[in-house]
């Protein structure tokens, strides 16, 4: 697969044209862009302060003032959904970036380093993967109490193995190629080889994986916040909107619908985009998830 990857990433322009023609990919792209924009521009798009209480307006349905209705404290659901996107974006951006960087590094080290180190790291990855994420998160919350940072740490720790394994496989395939051998014989240090020569050829598939990993990360945050073990009030997150909405599900279905739809659109967008990228740039990645 890696030789393909090495080859394919040298032909980007044609591939990008392919992406533009891929309908699912374009839908995904639009959704992803909408996610980024709505989160980044939340302060401008919101009609209310997401934490502003307005008790008399509690549980009003959608209308001119509250486009998606108001929750039990009279807070504007539309604005809270927008700001909830920022939490999702933050978790996704930090979580995915850090796990990618750490996973990439560990994966290259495993692939390029000595056999014993490779085996040890592989074992470590398999061990981490043997903890179901939510179960691990619950255990950690029971010891340390809920916080956004804890969620981030759990997300990062549990995502590292998939990046690392992918980076390792690619690195192994590159290790004995002529071009790396040539570098080595020219006296390039390990560090230089890894970061100047291996990384550019390994990172492509990881970026695709990252796109497909965003839904997982966003869902973990929303899920834990839904259980009341995630972000703290008054921060709005899609999970807390769902949590608070579930309490009044009989009186007003709007919050559970409004908190759920952006979550679905975001996961859908990243999945569609990720899969399109994968199909175009690296079809052989199909087995990884």
């Amino acid at each position: 697969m890696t030789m393909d990857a090495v080859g394919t990433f040298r032909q980007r322009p044609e591939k990008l044209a392919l992406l533009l023609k891929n309908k699912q990919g374009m839908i995904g792209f639009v959704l992803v862009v909408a996610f980024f924009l709505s989160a980044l521009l939340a302060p401008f798009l919101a009609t209310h302060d997401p934490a502003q209480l307005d008790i008399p307006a509690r549980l009003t349905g959608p209308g001119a003032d509250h486009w998606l209705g108001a929750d039990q404290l009279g807070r504007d659901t539309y604005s809270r959904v927008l700001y909830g996107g920022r939490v999702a974006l933050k978790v996704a951006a930090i979580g995915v970036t850090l796990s990618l960087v750490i996973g990439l590094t560990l994966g290259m080290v495993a692939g390029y380093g000595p056999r014993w180190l490779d085996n040890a790291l592989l074992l470590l990855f398999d061990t981490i993967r043997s903890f179901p994420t939510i179960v691990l998160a619950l255990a950690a919350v029971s010891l340390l109490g809920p916080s956004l940072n804890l969620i981030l740490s759990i997300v990062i720790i549990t995502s590292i193995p998939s990046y690392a394994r992918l980076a390792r496989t690619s690195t192994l395939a590159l290790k004995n190629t002529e071009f790396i051998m040539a570098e080595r014989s020219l006296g390039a240090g390990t560090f230089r080889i890894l970061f100047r020569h291996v990384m550019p050829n390994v990172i492509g598939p990881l970026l695709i994986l990252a796109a497909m990993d965003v839904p997982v990360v966003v869902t973990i945050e929303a899920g834990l916040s839904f259980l009341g073990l995630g972000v703290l009030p008054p921060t709005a997150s899609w999970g807390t909107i769902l949590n608070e909405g579930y309490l009044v599900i009989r009186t007003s279905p709007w919050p559970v619908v409004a908190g759920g739809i952006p979550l679905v659109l975001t996961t859908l967008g990243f999945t569609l985009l990720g899969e399109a990228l994968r199909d175009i740039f690296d079809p052989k990645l199909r087995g990884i998830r």
Partner: protein
Amino acid sequence: MLIYIVKRIGLAVLIILLAVLALFVMLHSIPGDPVSIALGPRATPEIQAAYAAKMNLDKPLFTQFLIFLGNVLTGDLGTDVFSNRSVAKTLLGQLPYTISLAVASLGWAVALGIPMGCISATKPNGWLDRITGLVSIGTIAVPSFLVSIWAILVFAIHLNIFPVIGAGDQGDLADMALHLVLPSFAVGLGWVGYLARMVRASMLEVMGENYIRSARAFGLTTQTIIYRYALRVAILPTITLIGVGFGGLLSGTVFAEIIFARPGIGKVIYDMVLNRNFPVVQGAVMMTVALYAVVTLASDIIVSILDPRVRESL
């Protein structure tokens, strides 16, 4: 073959050992008195003293770990500080609920996913294929806890056709099955898409093989071939999926058990997290890790028997 299986079992054992070590380290790396952390602050001094003696807290850390490991391996997952019951006993009582939920979820995935995969494969890139493709992606994208909430909203609140809490009357199989419908649907839905795609891919692959070509030469239609071979072709992806997705499935059952107030391991973990009953949480985590390891092990071995290509990867 045998070498692969032995290696694979060795790996599973090693992973379980490491997971136990990881838990042990987690417990001991948190600042504070390990006894209070392990038992939670509500434990009485007697219980704390008994625990300290049992865990040999005066001995070096490594000895402590060996003792801890010994206890775990002999099935002693500790004692619930509150009820004074054996954690293992408590969890074993809950395990059947989680397993039946997992199996029923798998049932949904198979019942919906395999036909969808077959339909797509009949005419690749036809309009049916496109629709099922979109549906597949949709089911993959919706988080299971959201399916649970929405399923409650639609089926329990607006249509009022399915029970929403508990596992049903013990002994009344029909009632228990009825109580399984919504939660297993919520957990299983996410798998429908994966399974449909894997079946589609394997099906297309198989279509190109010699015996299918000869079948076709004998005048069998594509449909007939697909449905005749469907089950056979679908087995491998299903088993592979169980192996790869079991962790996700367990996470899904945690949410379904909480939202539908069903008994099960996930519910126990959640309740015990809320009560800060760490011995039970720890025991439950070890049990899920072991369960996961065993399931992936079984799945890998079965896949390796069915599909020799896999063996090379270890």
